[in-house]
């Protein structure tokens, strides 16, 4: 009964929506849409004529666009109310978004067209055919209400290892702040959307990492993350009880991701004043609405991967996500999965904002353990799967292979080859990528599957450019009373100094002696220009130390601070106290001078992985480096002893202490032997007589 009623209700709703939609569509949008479409098609035709050499490719692309159109067309009949549940929901949602359904369809087509053009402008032919496609002046029409893009970047590392980075982006133009009114979801995961609207989250960044990113061997990651779990959230400024919302939010996220995020409480939450600024749009930078916590001990495994995959529109059924098989992902040197939610510009004009959900997964496969020493990588070898299709819901689905160090193929051989190349400035360095467009059927070739193969030609890869910034941390000293935390920050830039923000969060049971804080570089005292220190409160909040330090060129800056190890209450010890206690990574955030000058018009052309952190200056780029977490031993009682201790203490108290106390406090006198009966009688008589006693 309930289902029926629901259906009827929905039908009515859909009909209302449709009428409204058609009215509006007629009035406003049709003209504009048609114009835009014709222009786009014109340009495509021009390209066909102009670049005859590339005709095959462009045809392919057109075919892809056709395909997409066909796919859209297939879904078109579903516009009418039908019994098909999926379509039903699909439509209803579109209607609820108060936009005309046909318009949305058209627009998706357009997006496909547009996509082709961008690709054309962005892509440079390998054989350097003069490009006639430099006409990006067409104002792009407003994109769809929501869209999904997927991407895989493969970067062969100098150590022989290979780095694979997945990025999935869902953009949705909706208003989460209307609370429960957002109840229809297409691409955006509903479980997350509800959480976001309930807790008025403006930005949410969560990462689960197993392993430590080896900056000195691997260079910079696209998205850095500390070992364990990291969560930081900016709440909307309408939230009154931020701490309460944070507590609830962590518990909910803990359930969503099957992780121990519920262990986040006030003792490991901080509000950094400068290190974690919002990455999305927005003017509120009041740290009262920011919460940051790290759980360095969190162990990441398949149970965290599965819920993360479920948030993807295609799940792990189609598209790039088919590669994510846990038995291979966890047979690696480094594994990190993250989720970033933030408001971003809708388009390059940035007139309105949309919400962006970015799911990333970074893996580094080890040459020695999984490569059996042979310098040869393929998708199948890495993931034990090959690619057969793009996610049908994705507006773009691409695989990038970093070929910057390999312009003439002298370092490694890449097969199948792709004529598409793309350039992007990533982390201050201009990189060249071979692009495989999965929406294009030709990519899959005869075998209907894409299995890229990287075969190294040279046994030794060239020297890696030293990362400009990296950090290290360790505990110095011995014994269980005091210790010293050393944080080393390396500036490897040959001639430029730059400032970095250091954030240190230390649990309360390491009592920092803040007066022992020293910052030295090149043997000289280096005075931080900004220090924000919040002392800890026992069992309530951790130490928070933020510093702005200028790193001189080509130097090591050492920050040291002594601490004392507290003796915990016996219930506060973990079940394995002799393992030690973790101190989370310190975070070094910096604007690092760029290796190459950055492109000014990179907002549109960059692949996803290059455009995450906002860049204010062209000559430098934002970078965040996490140091190792620390494992510190605290004075630990012998927990097998309580029984012995209780027995011994009771005995000592009962026998030893009592009688010794007696001995020490009493005075002893030798007692006179009691007088005989005759003497006593005589004494009585004497007393009566008033004579002195005997």
């Amino acid at each position, binding site marked *: 009964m309930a289902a029926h009623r629901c259906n009827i209700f929905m039908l009515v709703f859909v009909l209302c929506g449709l009428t409204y939609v058609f009215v509006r569509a007629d009035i406003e949008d049709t003209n504009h849409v048609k114009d835009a479409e014709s222009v786009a098609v014109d340009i495509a035709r021009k390209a066909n004529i102009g670049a005859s050499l590339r005709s095959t490719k462009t045809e392919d692309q057109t075919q892809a666009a056709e395909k997409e159109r066909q796919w859209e067309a297939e879904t078109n009949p579903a516009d009418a109310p039908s019994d098909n549940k999926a379509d039903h929901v699909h439509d209803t949602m579109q209607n609820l978004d108060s936009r005309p359904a046909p318009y949305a369809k058209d627009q998706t087509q357009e997006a496909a067209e547009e996509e082709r053009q961008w690709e054309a402008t962005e892509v440079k032919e390998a054989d350097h055919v003069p490009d006639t496609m430099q006409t990006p002046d067409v104002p792009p029409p407003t994109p769809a209400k929501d869209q999904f893009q997927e991407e895989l970047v493969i970067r062969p590392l100098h150590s022989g290892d290979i780095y694979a980075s997945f990025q999935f982006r869902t953009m949705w133009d909706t208003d989460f702040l209307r609370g429960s009114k957002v109840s229809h979801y297409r691409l955006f995961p509903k479980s997350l959307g509800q959480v976001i609207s309930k807790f008025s989250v403006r930005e949410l960044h969560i990462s689960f990492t197993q392993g430590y990113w080896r900056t000195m061997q691997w260079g910079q990651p696209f998205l850095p993350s500390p070992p364990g779990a990291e969560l930081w959230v900016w709440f909307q400024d309408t939230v009154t009880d931020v701490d309460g919302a944070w507590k609830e939010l962590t518990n909910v996220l803990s359930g969503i991701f099957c992780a121990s995020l519920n262990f986040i409480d006030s003792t490991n939450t901080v509000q950094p004043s400068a290190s974690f600024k919002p990455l999305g749009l927005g003017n509120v930078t009041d740290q009262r609405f920011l919460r940051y916590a790290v759980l360095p001990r969190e162990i990441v495994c398949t149970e965290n991967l599965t819920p993360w995959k479920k948030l993807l529109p295609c799940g792990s059924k189609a598209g790039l996500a088919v590669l994510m098989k846990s038995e291979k992902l966890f047979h690696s040197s480094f594994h990190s999965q993250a989720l970033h939610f933030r408001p971003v510009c809708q388009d390059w004009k940035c007139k309105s904002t949309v919400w962006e959900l970015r799911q990333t997964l970074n893996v580094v496969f080890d040459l020695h353990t999984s490569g059996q020493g042979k310098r040869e990588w393929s998708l199948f070898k890495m993931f034990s799967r090959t690619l057969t299709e793009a996610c049908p819901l994705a507006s773009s689905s691409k695989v990038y292979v970093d070929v910057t160090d390999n312009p003439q193929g002298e370092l490694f051989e890449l097969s199948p080859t792709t004529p598409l190349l793309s350039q992007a400035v990533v982390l201050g360095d201009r990189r060249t990528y071979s692009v495989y467009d999965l929406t294009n059927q030709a990519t899959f070739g005869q075998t209907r599957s894409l299995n890229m193969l990287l075969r190294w030609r040279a046994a030794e890869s060239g020297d890696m450019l030293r990362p400009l910034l990296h950090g290290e941390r*360790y505990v110095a*000293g*011995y014994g269980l009373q005091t210790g010293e935390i050393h944080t080393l920050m390396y500036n490897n830039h040959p001639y430029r100094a730059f400032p970095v923000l250091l954030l240190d969060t230390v649990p309360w049971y390491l009592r920092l002696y803040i007066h022992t804080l020293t910052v030295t570089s090149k043997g000289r005292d280096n005075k931080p220009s900004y220090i924000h220190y919040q002392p800890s409160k026992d069992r309530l909040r951790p130490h928070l130390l933020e510093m702005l330090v200028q790193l001189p060129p080509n130097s090591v800056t050492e920050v040291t601070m002594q601490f004392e190890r507290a003796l915990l209450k016996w219930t506060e010890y973990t079940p394995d106290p*002799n393992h030690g206690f973790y101190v989370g990574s310190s975070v070094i955030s910096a604007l690092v001078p760029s290796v190459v000058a950055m492109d000014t018009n990179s907002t549109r052309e960059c692949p996803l992985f290059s455009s995450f952190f906002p860049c204010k200056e062209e000559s430098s780029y934002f970078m965040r480096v996490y140091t*190792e977490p620390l*494992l510190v031993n605290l004075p630990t009682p012998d927990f097998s002893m309580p029984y012995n201790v209780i027995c011994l203490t009771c005995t000592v108290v009962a026998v030893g202490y009592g009688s010794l106390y007696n001995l020490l406090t009493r005075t*002893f006198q030798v007692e006179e032997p009691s007088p005989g009966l005759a003497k006593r009688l005589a004494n009585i008589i004497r007393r009566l007589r008033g004579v002195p006693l005997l």
Partner: protein
Amino acid sequence: MGLLSDPNRRRALTKLLTRLNAPICVMCYLAGVAWFMGLAFEPFTLRTYMSENAMGSTMVEERFPAGERALATGREFAAHKKKVGGMPVDWLVKTMQSRGLEVFTQSFTRKLPFPDENKERYMVRGTNVYGILRAPRAPRTEALVLSAPCSEGNNNNQAVGLLLGLAQYFRSQIHWAKDIIFLVNEHDLIGMQAWLEGYHHTNTTGGDWSPLQGRGGSIQAALSLELSSDVITSLDLVLEGLNGQLPNLDLANLFYAFCQKIGVLCTIQGKLQRNDWDTTSGYSHAAQTMMLMVLKQASGRPWGDHGLFLRYHIEAASIRGINSFRQYKTDTTTIGRLLEGMYRKLNNLLERLHQSYFFYLMPSLSRFVSIGYYMPAFGLLAVILLLRALDLWVQLGASPPGTEDGVAGGVQPSSPGVLSILTPVVISHMTGVALYTLPILSQEMAVQHFPVSETEAVVLTAIAIYTAGLALPHNTHRLLQGEGTEEGWRVLKLVALLYLAVLLGCTALINFSLGFILALSLVPIAAFITPHTPKALSAAIMVLLSPGCTLLYCVFVFQELQETPVSLQDGWMLFLSVISQGILDHALYGSLVYPLLALLIYPCWLLLWNILFWK
């Protein structure tokens, strides 16, 4: 305690104790020695067992195949070592890098306080090379260390070869949860000290080293490998570390378990295990093994490169390959498998090794004596001091006429005694300070005036001060105070007894062996020395039982137990070198035995000497 709160009974008890004091003391002494010797008797000891769960039930499969290749690498290393004439740093760096490790080097220089004649070094300059195998998906919080010293001559090349072979093999395995650090240290302990201080950024002994670049978090366990031949007959486990510290017993258990599993002969103190505990020879074998351990532990010096790890609460042991003339040989592949198994198990550790004993003696590799069993032996010796002190206290209280009670007697004017004992106490300690500081300070002067080398100068100065101390203090109190009273020496002896009791008690808690050996020699003289005993005989006995002579006996006994007896002449030379080594250990690694003897035990003995010559 009701016994004590009744004055009558208390009086009876004290009377009994004072009357039977001497026999009780003798009994205690004999009982203490007997108890100690009984510890080596197998039925009285416990069989070792693995306490740590993580290392117990999880059996691992050892598959290390590349023993021959490791030996070839060792030969290559030897060739490069010979060519460079020291540590082949570049070759090691390249080799480790090609095996997929992160490689770092550390250079260090060290100037010894005086030349070390045993190892012929004075200005030491060297480089440590270490490679870190990063565990996959581990956040660099925990590490294990495998080290092999790069020794002079042809020693230990096989150890370095095996280390590199293991590094290559370990690198191809996925199951490491802790980083593994492969360390090749130059100049054995000095290099190790530099590396450890660099790793923990401490500087306890004023060395000069370059800071380390790469770390692996807190080190959970370490093994040091010494291997000088291609095949071996047995593996020897060395446990004794700096200041008599021992690693957790589980580390020894782990080694023993794998030796049993793989079928390698294993020894401790170079002695095989025997099964005939009920025969005299079987017992004496166990007793010898235990005595060797006691002597080594008492020396307070690290007996292998592992010894310095223990200060940092890192469980560590040395494994030494021994090639004797037996038929039964073990090849390098087997040793590699043994080490692989041990590291796999250590890798499984969830917590630091803490489940088993830290204080123990081992009469054989499968038997151990825990602290609860051996402490009574020391307790029986220490109680003698307390009994004598009680006796003295009672005598002091009882001697003035008019008081009946021991407690009330304490109020009597014994104050002249307190002042009179201050002078000998201060003078003895000044002598101790002189013994501690002067040998090194005055070596230049001694070398200028006497035809001796620096090392000889230091040792001979130490002996000279030690002997001069005998002549110095026992005359001084008369100059200040006039005649010493009967009460005076009693107070002095009371103080000396209690002082010695506290000293030995504390020493035995930290280093049982040292405390016990000192108690064996010092307790008898402390107990029975008075000014009224025959002077010449007592003086001779006192000198014979002084700490210096005890050291001399220990040298002879040690050589005897090691089955390398020495002549008197050689023994004396050995004794001199032991003194210089003791001073060097203190200066280089921070061993505490020399300062303990010079600053505390020797002055205490001087106090007793003072009593003998009290007038």
